[in-house]
């Protein structure tokens, strides 16, 4: 049962990574590409991480997985803000 859930979760995560890549390549504008990128960061990595949780050691393995995802979330959020400001700043000129 957990194996099936893992497979589903990881496959969904991979799909979000694909969506992020395709979005990065095909969206017309920097800001829209940024939107696609953060989907891969948050949901793609998150779903993969959730799918891997049953397969790693408790407690430290689980703790490391969650920590990595939280770090990526926080840095991706802050960096998106920075990128957005940069793009908007350039537009104002």
């Amino acid at each position, binding site marked *: 049962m957990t194996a099936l859930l893992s497979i589903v979760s990881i496959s969904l995560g991979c799909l979000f990574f694909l969506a992020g890549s395709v979005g990065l390549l095909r969206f017309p504008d920097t800001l829209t590409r940024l939107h696609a990128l953060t989907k891969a960061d948050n949901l793609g990595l998150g779903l993969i991480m959730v799918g891997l949780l049953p397969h790693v050691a408790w407690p430290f393995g689980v703790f490391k997985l969650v920590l990595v995802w939280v770090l990526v979330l*926080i840095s991706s*959020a*802050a*960096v998106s803000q*920075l990128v957005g400001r940069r793009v908007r700043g350039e537009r104002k000129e």
Partner: protein
Amino acid sequence: MNAELIFGVLLAGLILALASYVILGRNRFATTVGFVAYGLVLSLGWMVLAAPDVALTEAALGSGVTGALLLAACHKLRNDHARPSGPFLKLIAMILCGVLTAALIAVVLNLPEPPPSLAETAMEPLKSTGLGNPVTATLMAYRALDTMLEKVVLLLSLVAVWSLAPDRCWGGRPAFGYAAERGGPLLFLARVLIPSGVVVGIYLFWVGADAPGGAFAGGAVISAMAILGFWAGVSQPPAVSSLSLRGILVIGIVVFLVVGYCGYLWNSSFLSYPEAFAKPIIVVIEVAMTASIAATLAMLVAGPPGTSLRR
């Protein structure tokens, strides 16, 4: 055709493609970004080759800190339009690299079976050092002299960077300070990331005794956090002439030298450790080294002094 083979081939192809782009690309910023990406993919390659210590160092130093250095250089050169080297020179370089690659491939494919390796010899004295990680044992026990000299080289490179300062800025602060943007995302990122980064750095250093990690990886992560602090305006780089900074920079080498000369007392040879105390001594040296590496790398990225000490 199993999954591991597909993954390996994909990774190898990606490494080659990125390397070619970095060399052949036209846009300076784009190729620098390509170089950072290349370091990252190379680190994955090291993981596939079951070398996690090298992968850690490649990700932290080769991709992270070197990437920051190159990006800063790229930014400083943005108004410089020097001609790139001509096609003839590139052709010669490509031929030479191709010959070297072919020679390496020939050697690897023709290794005797089983290939000669020092792995067995390295694993034997492991218990007497008290360490569990053969890479750390090699760095800190078997070849400790090389590690100490590497620290000296790193310090010398920092002195070389400092010597680029204009005369009036001699001994001043690096011109690397940014004002903190109140409530900005960078300040938020710094506040969250720097403490966790320092903890991760200390963890990497500590776990290096028995698992992949060690002073270099830990020091590089801590230096990245210090540089992040400078960028976010949370702290300013110290003046180059400050005694406490210079103290931290040399403490790694000093501790190494002290332990080295004490080796004459215990075993009548430089840098020998008494068997009972090998691990604690190694840990002490590593603590000093981590601090030195972190400070040196951070000051390397901060650059030469740019503001005068006299106000």
